[in-house]
C-alpha cells in the first residue's frame, strides 16, 4: 500500500505529468480509425493494384516496349522514379541517424515518421529496377547464388552494387525502425486491450526498461546510427555511380556521388515536410511537433539546396572550361535543347524557390514550407529526369540522337507507386506511434 502511495505520488509529479501528456498525445493519434481513413486506405490500395500491378502485368505480357524507352534512351522514367524514391528514403536515415550522432534536438519530432518513410520509400524504389528489366522473370539472376552453370554475377557492374546497396539499405533501415519502436510498443501495450495488446506486447519483446535493457539498447542504437550514417552516403553514391561509371557525357562526372547524396537529403527533407505538416494538423500533434523543429528542417533543406546549386554550377562551368565538344554539347542541349523545360523547372524548384527560406517568416510558416516542399519534390524528380534522359538523348554520335517521352504504362506505374506509398504511410500513421515517445520524454526536465 505504501508502495501504491509512492506510485501515486510519483505520477502526481509535474515532470511525470508532462511525460504522460506526451504519451496521451501520441497514443490518441492511434485511436479508432474512422470511415474516411479506411476510405483513403482503400482508395490508395486500389490505385496501387490497378495502376501499378495492372500496367506491370500488361508490360510483362507484351514486352517492355509498351513503354517509351528507345535507342538511344534505354532508361526511361522507371529509373528516374527509382532514383527519386531512393532519394526520398535518405532523409529518414539522415534525420534519425546523422542528427542522432550530432545530438540535434529537433530530430525527435520527425525521426519516427522519417524512418517509416524511409522503409516505405525504399520498397517503392526497389520495385523499379525490376519493373524496368526486359526479362523480369530472370531477375533472380542478379543475385549471386551457387548454380550448376558455375556462373556468378559481375561484381564490377554498378547495377550489381545497387543490388547490394539497396538490399542492405532496406534491411538496416527496417532494423533501425523496429529497434526504435521497441520501447514504444511496450508503452502502447499499456493503452490497449485484447488482441492488439498481445500483438504490441509480443512486438515489444517484453521490454520493461531495466538497466540491462537500456544499456544494451543505447549501445545498439548508437551502433546502428553509426552504421547507418556511412550507409546512407554509400547508397546514394552507388546510385549516382550507376550513371557516373558510364562514359555518357553528362553522366560521367566525379562530383556525382556527393552531389546525389546532397540531392537525396534535399528531396528527403522535402518529402518529410510534405508528410508531417498535414499529419501534425490531422492528428493534433502540435504539442509534440513544435514549429522550431520545422524551421530547423527548413534550414537543412536550404543548406542542401545550396550544395545542389553548387553542383549545377560547377558541372556547367567545367563543361565549358573543358572545351570538350561532347561534354559541353550535352549541357548546352540541357539549357536550350528539347528538354529545356525540364531543366528550367529543375533549376527553379531546386535552386531558386528554396532561397525564400532565407526569410525567417517563410521558414516558420507551415503553409509556405508545404508549398516549397512540393516544389522541391517536383524539382528533384525533374533533376533525375534531366540527368538520366537528356544525357542519353544527346550522346556522341549525332546520327543516333533521339528524344524519349514516357507512355501510359510508365505513367500509370508511377502513379501506382504513389498509391502504394500513401497506403503504407496511412497504415503506419494509425497503427504505430508516429512520434518516438521515449525520446520525447527524454527532453522533459
Amino acid at each position, binding site marked *: 500500500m505504501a508502495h501504491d502511495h509512492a506510485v501515486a505520488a510519483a505520477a502526481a509529479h509535474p515532470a511525470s505529468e508532462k511525460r504522460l501528456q506526451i504519451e496521451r498525445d501520441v497514443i490518441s493519434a492511434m485511436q479508432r480509425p474512422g470511415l474516411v481513413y479506411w476510405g483513403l486506405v482503400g482508395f490508395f490500395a486500389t490505385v496501387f493494384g490497378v495502376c501499378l500491378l495492372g500496367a506491370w502485368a500488361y508490360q510483362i505480357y507484351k514486352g517492355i516496349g509498351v513503354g517509351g524507352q528507345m535507342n538511344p534512351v534505354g532508361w526511361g522514367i522507371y529509373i528516374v522514379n527509382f532514383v527519386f524514391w531512393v532519394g526520398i528514403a535518405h532523409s529518414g536515415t539522415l534525420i534519425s541517424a546523422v542528427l542522432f550522432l*550530432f545530438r*540535434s534536438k529537433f530530430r525527435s519530432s520527425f525521426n519516427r515518421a522519417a524512418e517509416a518513410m524511409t522503409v516505405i520509400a525504399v520498397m517503392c524504389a526497389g520495385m523499379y529496377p525490376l519493373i524496368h528489366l526486359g526479362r523480369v522473370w530472370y531477375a533472380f539472376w542478379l543475385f549471386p547464388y551457387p548454380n550448376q552453370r558455375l556462373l556468378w554475377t559481375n561484381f564490377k557492374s554498378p547495377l550489381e552494387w545497387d543490388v547490394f546497396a539497396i538490399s542492405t539499405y532496406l534491411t538496416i533501415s527496417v532494423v533501425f525502425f523496429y529497434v526504435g519502436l521497441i520501447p514504444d510498443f511496450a508503452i502502447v501495450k499499456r493503452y490497449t486491450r485484447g488482441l492488439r495488446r498481445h500483438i504490441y506486447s509480443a512486438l515489444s519483446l517484453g521490454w520493461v526498461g531495466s538497466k540491462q535493457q537500456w544499456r544494451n539498447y543505447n549501445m545498439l542504437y548508437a551502433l546502428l546510427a553509426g552504421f547507418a550514417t*556511412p550507409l546512407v*552516403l554509400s547508397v546514394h*553514391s552507388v546510385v549516382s*555511380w550507376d550513371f*557516373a*561509371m558510364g*562514359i555518357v557525357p553528362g553522366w*560521367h*562526372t*566525379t*562530383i*556525382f*556521388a*556527393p552531389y546525389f547524396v546532397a540531392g537525396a537529403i534535399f528531396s528527403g527533407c522535402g518529402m518529410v515536410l510534405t508528410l508531417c505538416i498535414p499529419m501534425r494538423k490531422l492528428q493534433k500533434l502540435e504539442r509534440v511537433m513544435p514549429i522550431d523543429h520545422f524551421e530547423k528542417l527548413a*534550414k537543412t533543406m536550404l543548406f542542401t539546396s*545550396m550544395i545542389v546549386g*553548387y*553542383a549545377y554550377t*560547377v*558541372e556547367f562551368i*567545367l563543361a565549358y*572550361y*573543358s*572545351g*570538350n565538344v561532347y561534354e559541353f554539347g550535352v549541357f548546352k542541349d540541357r539549357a536550350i535543347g528539347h528538354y529545356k523545360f525540364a531543366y528550367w523547372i529543375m533549376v527553379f524548384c531546386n535552386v531558386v524557390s528554396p532561397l525564400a527560406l532565407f526569410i*525567417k517568416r517563410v521558414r516558420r510558416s507551415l503553409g509556405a514550407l508545404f508549398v516549397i516542399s512540393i516544389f522541391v519534390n517536383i524539382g528533384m524528380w525533374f533533376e533525375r529526369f534531366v540527368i538520366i534522359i537528356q544525357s542519353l538523348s544527346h550522346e556522341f554520335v549525332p546520327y543516333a540522337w533521339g528524344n524519349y517521352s514516357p507512355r501510359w504504362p510508365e505513367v500509370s506505374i508511377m502513379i501506382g507507386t504513389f498509391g502504394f506509398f500513401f497506403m503504407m504511410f496511412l497504415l503506419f500513421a494509425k497503427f504505430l506511434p508516429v512520434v518516438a515517445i521515449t525520446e520525447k520524454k527524454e527532453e522533459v526536465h
Partner: protein
Amino acid sequence: MGIRLNPMRWLLASVIVAAIAFGADRVLEPAAGGAITIAAALFIGLAEGAICLMAGAEISDGHWHRPLLPRAASLVYVIPVGALLFLVNIPQLSIYPWAEDPSGWLSKGPFIARHVALFALVFAVARKFVGEAVRGAQRTRFWAVIYVILFVAHLSMIGIEWFMTIERPWFSTLFGAFVMVSAFLSGICALSLTVFSWRRRTDAPSKLVQKSLGGLMFGFATFWAYFYFSQLIVIWYGNIPEETMYLAKRIGYHTPYWLPARLIFGMIWVTPFFVLLRRKNKTLAPVTSTLAVIVLSGVTMLFWIMLAPVVPVSIPLLVLLIALLTFLTASIVRSYDLLLRVPAEVVHEPAHQPAHSH
C-alpha cells in the same frame, strides 16, 4: 573585435615572410616552381577552414566551440599573409599551361584580379564574422552563413585555378570541393593543435571541445577519403585517356609518385581513422595533436603531388616557407604573449546563449 593585435608587428612579420619567399624565389628561379603556391594554399586553407568550422558551429547553434573562438578568430590574420604570398608568386604564373595561350577567363590579368578581390572579400567577411562571434552579437549567424558561402567559393576557386589548371584541359568536377574539404580538415587539425598548446594553461579546454574536435577529425578524414574514392573510381572505371592521364601520372606504379601517393592516403585517412576509432583517443591531446601534424603534412604532400609531376617544386623553399608560416601562425594564435595584448576576459569569455532570434 575580440582580439586586438599590434598591427605594426604583425605587418612586419608578414612582410618579412613574404620578402624571404620572394628572395628565395628569385634565387631558385625557375626551379622554385609551385613551392609558394603550395605553402600559400596550405595556410589559407587551414586558417579559413578553422574559421569555417566556427561558422558551422554557430549556424547549428552548438556551444562546444565557444572556448575555441578567440584562437580561431586570430587565424583571420593568416589570410592576408597568404594573399601576400600569392602576390609574391605572380612571376611564377608562367608555370600554368594557359599562360602561353591565354583565353578570356584564364589569363594572368583577370586571374590576379579576381583572386586579389576574393582575398579581400573573404578577409573582410571573416574578420566581421569572428568579431561578431566573439562578442556573441545578434548578427553572428548572418555573417556565419555569408562566410561559409565565401569559404566554399574561395577554396573551390583555389582548387580549380591554382591546382587543376596546371593540367589543363584535364578536369574533374569534384576537384574544387575536394580541395575545399582538405582545407576544412586541415582547419580542424590546426584547431586541435591549439588545444595542445593549452594544456599547460589554466583555461584547459573542456573534454567536450576535445571530444568534438576528435570526432570531427575522425569524421572529416573519412569524408575526405570518400571524396578521394569518389574521384578515383569514376576515373578508374571510365578509362578515358583524357581523364586517366592525370591519375596515372600521380598514382601509377610506373611513376616515382606511386609511393608518396599511397602515403598521402595513409596519412590523411588510414592513420586518423584507425587511431580515433577508439573513443578514448579522441580526448587525448597528445594523440590528437600528433594526428593533426600527420594529417597536415599529408595535405601538404597532397598539394605537392598535384603540381610536382608537371612543374618543378623546390623542396627546400617549400620547407623553409612552411617553417616560417608555422611560426607566424603559431605566434598569431598564441598572440597574447607574443604579438598583441588581449584582455583576459575575452579568453575566459563566459559561454553565453548564442544570439537566438525569436
